[in-house]
C-alpha cells in the first residue's frame, strides 16, 4: 500500500513543473573558487595627505601581500610655478620666494639665490657678509638635519628624540629672531650682502648655542645608538647601489652614505669654505641607517665651521658699495638724493645683468641646490631653472622601495628626507 502511495506522489511531482530557481540550483555549476588571499596584487594609494610622506607626496604602490612590487611616485601637489613667477619679477623680488622652496632651511636658500645672482651680475660681496652667510648656511643645515633626525626616529617608533630635536631647533629660530627679525621665512640675504648686520647679542647667542649643542647631540645619540628596535628598523633598509645612485643623479647625504665623498663645499668652494677645516662625512652601507648617521655627523661638522667663522669674523660693511647693483640702506634713501635715485632705478628697472647664461650651486642639506639663470639684459631673468635636490632624490624611490615591506616605506621616505616645497617648485 505504502509503495503505491509513494509512486503516486512521484507521478504527482513530475507533473508539477520545477521552478526556475530550483532548476538552476540542481543543474548548474555553482561552485566558487577562492584565490589565495596572499597571492593577490593590490594597488595602494599612499598620500598626498599622509603624515609619513613629509608633505604632499603621493605614491601608488602595487602590493603583493605586504611586499611592494611596483611603485609610481606622483608629484605636483605643491606646484606653484616659481620658475614662471621668476620670469615676471625683478631679481630682488624673488628673494622671499626662495624661502618657500626648502622651508626647513629658508636661510640657506636665500644664500644660494643671492650667490647665483651675484655671479651673474659680477658683484663682489664684502668679507663680513660672506662670513655671516656661511654661518647662516650652516645654521640652516643643522636646522634641516635636526628635522631629518627627528622624523626618522619618529617614523621608526620613537617620539622622544623628535621632541628633543624640536627643542634645539627652537633655539636656532630664536637666534634668527635676534638678527634677522623673523623666525621662519627669513629672506635674510640680499643681492650684494645681507639685510642687516649681525648684532653682538646674536653672535653671543650663536656661540652659546654651538657650545651647548654637541652635548645635546651626544644625548640624542645615546638614546638611539644602541637601541635594537631603531637599528633593526633601519639597517639594510632602502639599499640602493652606488652605481644606481650615480646613474640617477642623486647627490647630497645619500650619495655620501654610499661611499662617494662628493661635497660642493669642498669640490667647488663658495663663500669661505676653502678657508674652513672640516671633514666630508661618508659611509659605505648605502642604507637608511648610513644616511641617518651621515646627517647626524654632519651636524658636528657644521658646529665646527660655525665656530671657525665666529673666531675669524672680520669687521666692516655687510653690503656691497655698488650703487648700480646693490640696494642702498633705507635710512640713506630718505635723506640723500643720490641714494634715492639709485633705489628708484634698481626697484623699477632692476640690475640689468649682461646677456648670457650663468649657473651657481651650493651644497644644501639635501644636495646640490642650483640656479641656472639666462639673462637677456633686462631687469628680470629670461629663464630661471631651479635645480632642486629633493626632486632628484625622490627619483630613487622606486629603486629603494622595490621588494621592501610596506611598513619600511615610511622609514625609506624619511631616509631620503624630501621637502615637497622644493621638489614641486
Amino acid at each position, binding site marked *: 500500500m505504502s509503495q503505491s502511495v509513494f509512486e503516486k506522489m512521484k507521478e504527482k511531482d513530475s507533473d508539477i513543473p520545477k521552478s526556475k530557481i530550483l532548476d538552476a540550483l540542481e543543474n548548474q555549476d555553482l561552485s566558487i573558487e577562492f584565490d589565495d588571499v596572499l597571492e593577490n596584487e593590490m594597488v595602494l594609494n599612499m598620500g598626498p595627505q599622509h603624515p609619513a610622506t613629509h608633505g604632499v607626496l603621493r605614491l601608488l604602490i602595487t602590493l603583493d601581500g605586504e611586499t611592494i612590487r611596483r611603485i609610481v611616485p606622483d608629484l*605636483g601637489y605643491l606646484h606653484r610655478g616659481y620658475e614662471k613667477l621668476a620670469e*615676471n619679477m625683478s631679481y630682488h623680488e624673488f628673494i622671499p620666494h626662495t624661502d618657500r622652496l626648502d622651508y626647513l632651511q629658508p636661510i640657506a636658500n636665500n644664500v644660494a639665490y643671492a650667490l647665483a645672482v651675484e655671479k651673474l651680475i659680477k658683484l663682489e660681496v664684502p668679507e663680513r657678509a660672506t662670513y655671516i652667510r656661511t654661518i647662516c648656511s650652516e645654521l640652516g643645515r643643522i636646522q634641516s638635519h635636526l628635522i631629518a633626525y627627528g622624523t626618522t626616529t619618529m617614523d621608526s617608533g620613537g617620539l622622544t628624540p623628535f621632541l628633543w630635536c624640536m627643542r634645539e631647533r627652537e633655539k636656532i629660530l630664536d637666534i634668527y629672531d635676534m638678527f634677522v627679525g623673523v623666525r621662519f621665512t627669513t629672506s635674510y640675504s640680499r643681492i650684494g650682502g645681507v639685510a642687516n648686520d649681525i648684532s653682538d647679542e646674536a653672535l653671543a647667542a650663536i656661540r652659546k648655542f654651538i657650545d651647548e649643542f654637541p652635548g645635546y647631540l651626544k644625548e640624542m645619540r645615546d638614546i638611539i645608538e644602541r637601541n635594537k628596535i631603531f637599528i633593526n628598523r633601519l639597517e639594510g633598509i632602502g639599499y640602493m647601489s652606488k652605481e644606481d645612485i650615480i646613474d*640617477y*643623479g642623486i647627490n647630497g647625504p645619500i650619495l655620501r652614505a654610499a661611499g662617494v665623498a*662628493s661635497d660642493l663645499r669642498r*669640490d667647488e668652494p663658495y663663500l669661505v669654505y676653502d678657508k674652513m677645516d672640516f671633514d666630508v662625512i661618508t659611509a659605505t652601507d648605502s642604507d637608511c641607517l648610513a644616511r641617518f648617521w651621515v646627517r647626524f655627523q654632519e651636524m658636528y661638522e657644521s658646529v665646527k665651521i660655525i665656530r671657525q667663522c665666529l673666531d675669524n669674523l672680520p669687521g666692516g660693511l655687510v653690503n656691497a658699495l655698488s650703487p648700480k647693483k646693490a640696494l642702498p640702506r633705507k635710512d640713506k634713501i630718505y635723506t640723500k638724493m643720490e641714494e634715492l635715485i639709485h633705489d628708484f632705478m634698481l626697484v623699477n628697472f632692476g640690475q640689468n645683468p649682461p646677456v648670457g647664461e650663468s649657473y651657481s650651486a651650493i651644497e644644501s642639506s639635501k644636495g646640490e641646490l642650483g640656479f641656472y639663470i639666462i639673462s637677456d639684459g633686462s631687469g628680470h631673468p629670461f629663464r630661471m*631653472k631651479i635645480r632642486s635636490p629633493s626632486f632628484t632624490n625622490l627619483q630613487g624611490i622606486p629603486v629603494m622601495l622595490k621588494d621592501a615591506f610596506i611598513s619600511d616605506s615610511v622609514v625609506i621616505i624619511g631616509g631620503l628626507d624630501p621637502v615637497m616645497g622644493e621638489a614641486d617648485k
Partner: protein
Amino acid sequence: MDRLTLFQEKLKDFSVEFYDVNGTPGIITTPEKVLDVCNLLKNDADLSFEMCRDAVGVDRFQKKNRFEVIYSLYSLKFKDRLFVKVLLDTKNPETPTLTVIWTGTNWFEREAYDMFGIKFKDHPDLRRIYMPEEFEYHPLRKDFPLMGIPGSLYLPKK
C-alpha cells in the same frame, strides 16, 4: 692639460660649438649628434661625466631653433662640470632621450615635456610630472600668460 682644451680635442670629430656659462664650459649640439656626444662624454676615461644632474628646458621665442634643452653634467672623478645644449626645431621640438645613458634624466625630461612640450623620442615614461594629465598647455612657454588661461584647469563647482 687644461680641461677646456681637452674637451675641444676629444670632441673635434663631432664639430660641436663651445659656449661659456659664466666660467663653466658648455657645448652646443643638435638632436642628431647628441647621443653619440653624450656616450663619449660618459664613457671616455679622460672625460668621465658619470652624472647628469639636471636638464633645463628653454623657450627662446624666436623663429629658428625656438627650443633648447641644456643638460648639466658632473664628473665625480675630476669634480668638473659641463653643459650640453641641444638646439631644437621650432615646429616639432624633438630630441632622442638620454635615459639610455643616464637613467636619472627620466624625470628631468618629463619636466621639460610638461613645461615646454619638448618631445623625447623613445622615452620610457613620457607623462606630465607637475601639471594634471588632462592639462592641454605647456605653462613655461613664453606665449602662455602668467595669469593662466581661464577654463584650462578643471575646478570643482562652488
